[in-house]
């Protein structure tokens, strides 16, 4: 897979994630007890043998840089190839926002040209999944496609807009694509991953960025549906779309099902992340833990049900956590009760407080807040 270049796009919309993305880009959103969303895309690429990964940076990327550092955890601190951070231009013509992948690709055209790989996979990072990019490229070559798009129909991803639906012919050729259609007739939902020849990618970037277009998929690929051979590759594994608080909460809770846990973390190789050398979890006498995902560094004396605890959370006696997500280093005073709550990193909840959200609308407590 040395012939495949990986490009990770961080420009997907994050408005739906509310407080979780105020200070961080989508890729840096904590997920699954010890990961950040980007870990999945990055690990999938590395597990497929991709050795050259470019990450298109837009804004709020501080926490992301702190997380990925030099790419060592993904074995991407290489003498040749490795991980490349590709910042967007600080100022764009017209002074508009910079969350545009076409502008960013145009700005980093030199990197694309210089890379020795013949093929490129361009991927967003909102889709949390464990998939085999090697198989995607093999399919792409077998179909002699111009572009191969990856889709999934096992999860009800259309429940979490924005999404793109595909209609494909029996041979896999994509006949139609639609963005958030009012009447969705297809269960084939795009995972925002596209394989094509690197030359074609450069051509699309040159042509459309010169015509003031901003988004690779909607403004450079969709309009060419008729003339390019676009094929759909079906990925059948578990997929979680991280694009709204509701989907974030739902897909987090899915991890509590052993079959999803197994699928997401073990199928095509392990998902790597920054290692923090936390101690194993201590369960004290009297702790009540059920149906929960617990990261290392936690100490539990209270009750934890249907919840996810990130690293280093201390659950003292009398503390009750139900149906909640508690991120790193939360400090929970004695007698705190949480239900349907998402606590961002380093939150302090003072003694005796009860916080309750709703499964369809979990309460979010912002990073560093004190309640």
């Amino acid at each position, binding site marked *: 897979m040395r012939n495949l270049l990986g490009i990770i796009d961080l420009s997907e919309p994050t408005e739906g994630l509310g407080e979780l993305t105020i200070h961080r880009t989508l890729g840096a959103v904590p997920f699954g007890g010890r990961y950040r969303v980007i870990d999945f895309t990055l690990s999938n690429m590395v597990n497929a043998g991709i050795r050259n990964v470019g990450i298109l940076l837009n804004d709020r990327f501080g926490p992301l840089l702190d997380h990925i550092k030099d790419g060592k955890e993904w074995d991407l601190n290489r003498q040749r190839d490795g991980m490349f951070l590709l910042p967007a231009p600080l100022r764009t013509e017209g002074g508009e926002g910079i969350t545009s992948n076409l502008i960013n690709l145009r700005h980093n055209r030199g990197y694309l040209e210089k890379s020795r790989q013949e093929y490129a996979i361009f991927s967003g990072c909102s889709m949390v999944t464990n998939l085999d990019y090697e198989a995607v490229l093999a399919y792409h070559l077998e179909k002699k496609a111009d572009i191969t798009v990856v889709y999934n129909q096992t999860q009800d991803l259309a429940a979490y807009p924005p999404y793109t639906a595909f209609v494909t012919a029996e041979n896999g050729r994509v006949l139609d694509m639609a963005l958030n259609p009012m009447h969705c007739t297809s269960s084939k939902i795009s995972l925002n991953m596209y394989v094509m020849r690197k030359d074609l990618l450069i051509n699309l970037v040159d042509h459309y960025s010169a015509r003031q277009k901003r988004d690779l998929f909607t403004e450079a690929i969709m309009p060419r549906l008729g003339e390019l051979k676009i094929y759909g590759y079906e990925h059948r594994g578990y997929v979680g779309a991280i694009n709204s608080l509701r989907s974030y909460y739902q897909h987090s809770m899915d991890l509590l099902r052993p079959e999803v846990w197994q699928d997401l973390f073990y199928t095509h190789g392990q998902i790597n992340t920054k290692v923090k050398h936390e101690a*194993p979890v*201590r369960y004290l006498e009297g702790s009540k833990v*059920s*149906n929960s995902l617990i990261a290392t*560094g936690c100490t539990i004396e209270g009750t934890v049900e249907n919840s996810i605890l990130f690293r280093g959370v201390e659950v003292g006696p009398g503390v009750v956590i139900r149906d909640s997500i508690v991120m790193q280093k939360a400090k929970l005073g004695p007698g705190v009760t949480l239900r349907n709550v998402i606590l961002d990193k380093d939150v302090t909840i003072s003694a005796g407080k009860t916080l309750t959200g709703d499964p369809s609308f979990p309460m979010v407590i912002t990073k560093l807040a004190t309640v």
Partner: protein
Amino acid sequence: MQKKEVVAMLLAGGQGSRLGILTKKLAKPAVPFGGKYRIIDFTLSNCSNSGIDAVGVLTQYQPLTLNSYIGIGSAWDLDRSGGGVSVLPPYVREQGGEWYKGTANAVYQNMDFIDQHDPKYVLILSGDHIYKMDYSSMLRYHKSKGAAVTIAVIPVPWEETHRFGVMKTDENGRIMEFQEKPKVAKSNLASMGVYIFNWKELKSFLEADEADPNSNNDFGRNIIPAMLDAEEPLYAFAFKEYWKDVGTIDSLWEANMDLIAKDPELKLNDSKWKIFSLNQTLPPQLVGPDADVQGSLLSDGCLVLGKVHHSVIFTGAQIAEGAEVTDSVIMPGVKIGEGAIVQKAIIGENTIVEPGAKIGVPARPGEKVEISNENGITVIEDNVTVPKTMRIVQGTVLSVAAWPEFPEEWIS
């Protein structure tokens, strides 16, 4: 090579024969410990946390696991330019080569390595002890005393002094007398096997020791007594925190159990003194809807659907529905099948216990059992499958070599 004030030499070549089947294929320092660590992590992390960044690891017995585990030392932040960690196996010289004959000989054979860094002090460490210690404060003590060697000591119960090298000191901490495994001890201050030497002095004693054909080439038995005889200033540095030699099945099990005490003496969760280890990145542990976990330590990648009481469960181990694990040490990758029972046992890496198997159950009246350790701990080798019909009586130490010869009555 960069000049260093201190070079640490970590003795990791021991077979650990008293750990029996647990060290059949790996050296004692590589034995898994404490849910996610290997024994050597404690000493390596101590070096890293003490600011010592030139460490030689002397390997000899079954070094494969240890070599690949240590790698270039990145996990302990010891991948450093001009130093870091170096694995030092015995090697062939112009006049032939030989195995490490003893602890002192192992260091003697690596004098060139130490000289590369031209250090003032050499820290000698064992790779088979569990403790957190700041070697830099011991070095400050060593310097303040103007010692030729400083030996870290810890008080042990008087009835156990026969297992240790003990020091009799004067009121200033100077060592007056040294007894190696004495029948009648004059002190209960035991050597922890942690020494700081002035390199110049140590070098000359190592050379003299090597020239003596009757020497065992051992620090405790030869070098220290020789230095004492020569009236070199030897000082004892008293260590008062948790320290445990995990050289036996009993002590390995006990040290694991120590970690799950309500208020453990050795805290693993200390952000100022982290114990680093090399681990594959596995997902957080998943505790199922009917699981019951109490008084235990569990690591990443574990899937617990059954009952775990008072046990240490290592990375990636799985406990199925209805299984019951009590007072046990379950090493990495072990799978305990549905309804299986494991009591007071150590289960070796990647072993599969099939559904319904019983391990460590009390003997039936009249049943003959050979208990091989004080605590009556049952030990199952790594990488084996315990069949579902198997009933293994408390205190049995089970190696696959003995598999076919099982007494009938052990099969339920």
